[in-house]
């Protein structure tokens, strides 16, 4: 599906990963979802390094980034993206468990595009993820949304 850019989901917790994928699934988005389980994996995929060397260039429509990650944490990933000439235009949404003020302030200083605290209620969480997906992956795209005729494609980075 040429021109439809993927969503990069960076999440270490398998349960959160499953729930977020479920929410994205229910949103009926046509975009491919690439998952990364920590900051290093995410950066390798984005910058096409190491195991992702020579990956076909296809920048994500949006990066959904958890804040607390093993090895390289979310804020560091954000910082590297926003400090890179070619990457800084990519929309990054912090999708985090914390409403901690200092994290919010730091994220905005680094140029985050949105900051979303995962709601406890599943319906609210579902609404939030769908909203994000629709806005960044669809509204933000020149291509109009179309119903999908095949299961959502999920790739591990």
């Amino acid at each position, binding site marked *: 599906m040429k021109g439809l850019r993927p969503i990069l989901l960076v999440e270490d*917790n398998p*349960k*959160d990963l499953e*729930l977020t994928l*479920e929410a994205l699934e229910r949103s009926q988005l046509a975009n491919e979802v690439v998952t990364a389980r920590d900051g290093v994996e995410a950066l390798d995929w984005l910058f096409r390094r190491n195991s992702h060397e020579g990956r076909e260039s296809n920048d994500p429509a949006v990066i959904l980034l958890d804040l*607390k990650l093993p090895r390289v944490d979310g804020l560091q990933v954000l910082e590297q993206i926003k400090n890179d000439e070619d990457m800084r235009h990519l929309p990054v949404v912090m999708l985090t*468990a*914390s*409403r*901690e*003020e200092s994290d919010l302030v730091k994220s905005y200083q680094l140029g985050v595009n949105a900051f979303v605290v*995962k*709601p*406890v*209620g*599943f*319906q609210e*969480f579902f609404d939030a993820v769908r909203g994000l997906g629709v806005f960044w992956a669809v509204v933000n795209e020149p291509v109009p949304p179309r119903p999908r005729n095949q299961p959502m494609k999920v790739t591990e980075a």
Partner: protein
Amino acid sequence: MLGAVALEAGTYNVLAHVSGPSLILEFEQLGIGDAGSLDQVYPQVRAFLNSLQASSSIAELNARAARHVRDITGFDRVMIYQFDDQWNGTVVAENRNEALPSYLDLRFPASDIPAQARELYRLNRLRLIPDATYEPVAIVPEMNPATGAPVDLSLSLLRSVSPVHLEYMRNMGTPSSMSISIIDNGRLWGLISCHHSQPKVVPAHVRTACDFVGQMLAMQLSARFRNEEAVQRVGYQAIQSDLLASMAGEPFFIDGLKKNRDGLLRLTEASGAAIVFGGTVSRIGACPDEKDIQRIVAWLSSKADDAEVYATDCLSDHMEGAESFAEMASGLLAVSISQLHASYILWFRPEVIQTVTWGGDPSEKVRHGSDPQRLHPRKSFEQWKETVRLRSLKWTNVQRDVASAFRSTIVSIVMRKAEELAALNQELTRSNKELEAFSYSVSHDLRAPFRHIVGYAEMLKDKYGDQLDAKATRYINVIVESAGSAGKLVDDLLGFSQMGRMTVVPIRVDMNRLVKEVRDVLDTETNGRDIQWHIGDLHSVHGDPGMMRQVMQNLVSNAIKYTRGRDTAQISIDSEETPTETIISIKDNGVGFDMAYVDKLFGVFQRLHRVEDYEGTGIGLANVRRIMERHGGRAWAEGELNKGAAFHIALPRNQGA
């Protein structure tokens, strides 16, 4: 003394001494029984020597010396006369019969015994005037033929004395006198002064015995003084230890000092003291009023040579206006106890005249018909009073040292307290950081499981709902609801803990607008209920807009919630201004509460209603109170069961706005 010789005219005692190039021979007429030797008075002298050891104090020593000299000589009155630093004199001991009045404690100005006379006393230890009514006889020839100058009779026994002195003696009614100098290390310490109401001859051997007594007394005094100083230091040390214990027993050292008032005064033998610390003045004993003490402190700290210890026995000589409180504070001993602030301990001593008692009544009619303007001890006393006006007793070196040592003790206590505070501050910062870290990890790690429970239960219901019976579906709903409310609880608790750490940024908040916005947001909660709103024209407040919104949202939401059962709910919001505060009040006609539990209302997780009747985590009002406290304001409530409730918040009015 050469001894007695018999000449034609009678028996004479011959004395010889060298004066310049000349040898001077003096022939003193001996009466019947006057000839004698030291052996005759030896028992009395020995008794004196033995009694010296038994004397426990300097005062007792002086008293014994006076008694023994009187025993040996038979004078009507024997006084011990002591010079101070300025050569003023005091009668410190006396022994007498009824023939002459008491002069004990009488003071004499330095001018009574001028420097020249004192020097003679120092060189020639014994002076005798057997009869002040004597006729002076000139030396023939007037000039020494060898030198062409008058003969120097300074060291002579039989020389004439100044007419002024003779007049003084006549006015005192004492025709006969003898004085023995008490010399300590070459300095004239004082005199043993003897008087008689009749002319009196003192034989040479008795005079020698008296001179011996005088010298023994001088040696004893000198030893005793050194000893007494050591004893004093030990005594002061004990007082200081006592004060230190008092200070250690109190969280604030000044409270310890105030409890041990007596110790603080005895430490420097002062009659009043003041502790000036951190702008407050604590007064102890007899001291100037607070305003004057503040003036003294201002003067002390403005002095260029702001020494650690300052002592004066005449404050009015140095500080302008100090005369007004000289009665209590002629003498000042001050130690500075802080480098940063004008903090001092001050000790005061009264004007010395206030402390003097004279055994003889100063107002007593002058006897012997003397003109009081003429030379007389009474006149001396008056003159002495003039010389010591505005003066206190001197602070001794020991007392200055004690004050200085005491200063060091207090400074180290103050410094230790400061260090303790710094350590405490560090500890607080550390535990605050820990608390932050704790709440951070709670927010991340405690919320996640609740989210997962809700998420998976919802997925279960969605995907397999058609295979479940009604009971299973209800169980899943309870799981979702419980995990949801647990998550809400965590969120509220976090919000509450963040509230304590968030910076308050107060600006002018338009309460009319805020209340309107809050009502709009909460409109969904009313579920189309019939609510009568009465909203007055509200005063603006000075507060953090985000926090004020939380407060109003909480209070309005509560009012909506607790009027749920009313057919017509009534909610009113009003404001009033006092000189210091702006008060906002929210009243409703809801279920109210029992005033017995009003204290619980604002506590964290405190609920006065069952959760199935009125939902909520019990943190809302705790947040309201906390926000008000962070603004320096207050929150309180009144209510009656089933009659309604009124909640009030008060914010300090911004004086500048």
